[in-house]
């Protein structure tokens, strides 16, 4: 056999998540799909909840009942940050402005990915929680000397401490309610969330700003063992339901009902009309 006759090795996708066996009559159609060893359509379907499946996809092991309950709580808490949130407003701008459904969700992911209230803040909050853990002195030291300059310069510098609300007066009620609930599910097992609940005043004092929803969710995701990158992905994903619903609502409400802030923009360097449409210069 010459080198030219030798069958070439085909490129493959390496995965620990997914395996397929083909239908006997079609190599491109799966007969059985396995997720981390479980038959998805022959076994899991009908037995597993959506958040349990989500956990399995990321962690490759089944969630315990308590872990599933915690993830369920996280998913409900962040599914809709409400129509004043920057990512939801982006989605609604698409809905009201006649954009496609996919445009609305892609639009939501822009602000939803950011370092202020978005997934990048979640990523940074996870790193902060992982670094400081349950050591109050470490929190105090880190918060008082937080590195705000981004090493990857594509990202803007960080304006505030991740997991804290720079414009807050006090810890907002929904944030407190979420913290109380998540830390109550299994305080022993979910140590970071419980610790945060017990030490909230101290870390808020060290950061000179109240805890935000991202700070609470970050602690819970650390307790579930999600990495910074996994938490960033989950945060992007789990906030899309609100974006979708609000985009559709504004689509049906129409453009005329959507805020335009007609009197809200003040141009500080308006030179006045330079010319008329014919090109005749006025100055």
């Amino acid at each position, binding site marked *: 056999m010459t080198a030219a006759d030798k069958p*070439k090795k*085909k*490129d493959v996708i390496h995965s620990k998540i997914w395996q397929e066996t083909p239908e006997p*009559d*079609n*190599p*491109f*159609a799966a007969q059985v799909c396995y997720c981390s060893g479980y038959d998805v359509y022959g076994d899991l379907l009908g037995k597993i909840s959506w958040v349990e499946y989500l956990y399995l996809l990321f962690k490759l092991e089944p969630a315990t009942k308590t872990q599933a309950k915690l993830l369920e709580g996280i998913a409900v808490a962040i599914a809709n940050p*409400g*129509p*004043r949130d*920057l*990512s939801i*407003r*982006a989605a609604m*701008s*698409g809905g*009201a*402005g*006649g*954009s*496609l459904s*996919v*445009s*609305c969700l*892609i*639009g939501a*992911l*822009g*602000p*939803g*990915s*950011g*370092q*202020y*209230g*978005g997934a*990048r*803040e979640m990523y940074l909050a996870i790193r902060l929680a992982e670094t400081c853990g349950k050591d109050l002195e470490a929190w105090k030291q880190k918060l008082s000397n937080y590195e705000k300059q981004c090493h990857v310069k*594509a*990202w*803007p510098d*960080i*304006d*505030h401490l991740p997991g804290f609300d*720079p*414009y807050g007066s006090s810890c907002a009620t929904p944030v407190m309610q979420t913290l109380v609930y998540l830390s109550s599910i299994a305080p022993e097992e979910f140590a970071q969330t419980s610790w945060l609940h017990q030490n909230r005043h101290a870390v808020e004092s060290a950061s000179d700003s109240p805890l935000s929803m991202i700070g609470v969710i970050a602690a819970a995701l650390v307790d579930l063992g999600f990495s910074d990158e996994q938490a960033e992905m989950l945060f992007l994903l789990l906030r899309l339901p609100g974006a979708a619903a609000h985009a559709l609502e504004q689509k049906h409400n129409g*453009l005329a009902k959507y*805020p*335009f*802030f007609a009197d*809200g*923009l003040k141009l500080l360097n308006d030179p006045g009309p330079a010319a008329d*449409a*014919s*090109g005749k210069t006025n100055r």
Partner: protein
Amino acid sequence: MKGPEALIHREDNWETEMGAWFAGERVVFRGLDVFTELFDKDWVETWFFSITGKFFSKKQIELFSRSWTICTSYPEPRIWNNRVAALSGSARTTAMLAIACGTAISESKFYGGQASFAAIDFITRTKKLVVDEGKELLEVVKQEIKSTRQVPVGFGRPIINSDERVAVALRLAQELGFADGPHVKLAFEIETLLREKRYRAKLNIAGFTSALYADQGLSPTEFYRMATVIYSAGIMACYIDAVEKPAGTFFPLRCERISYQGKPQRKWEN
């Protein structure tokens, strides 16, 4: 080929005349060598070459490029696609993501992608029916209004009726000698006809530029593909403006600015 055969045929077998990279050596783009045969092309020429496979004259490229400045480079953060870029800046994401998200929002039926496609589709069809086949313009327009239940796309505008860009873009077209093509002439005839029939819908910039570009030989699909990048200057400006101001301060909304009209408050029963 039907069923899996079509996929089996294409397994490890992508045939293309569009281009390829020969690692560390050279690049071929639609049959031309990038480092030599495209060496003297500017980016706008290359953009149109990518879409059409043709090179346009320097004057046409000037028309295209300058029309983008006039028509679609509005650094107005309240316009919906730009607003998403401003929100992205305010939320502190990257410039690349802001452009991507603003561009995605530009796929709108009121403006941007969908509107551009519909506008050039209408003017191209109408030119074929009226100019090439001799049909009555009034009948063609009436039929369009009847079938779509709206004035033809390319006429009328959200928020205000008139479009300040049309006169300026017409001046550009006149300056470069492109104002007398059959699609442009037809667009103004339709505007006159709509006015005579008391429709409050003047020629807008999508209607004018689609006619202008159709006169340069672009098909509806080519015009639509070309238009995917033309909002970028305005989108980027709005991102920069917001990202250079304190985070989260782009038109902040207090809780009372939600005017709730839904069900009264109630308890969840398990």
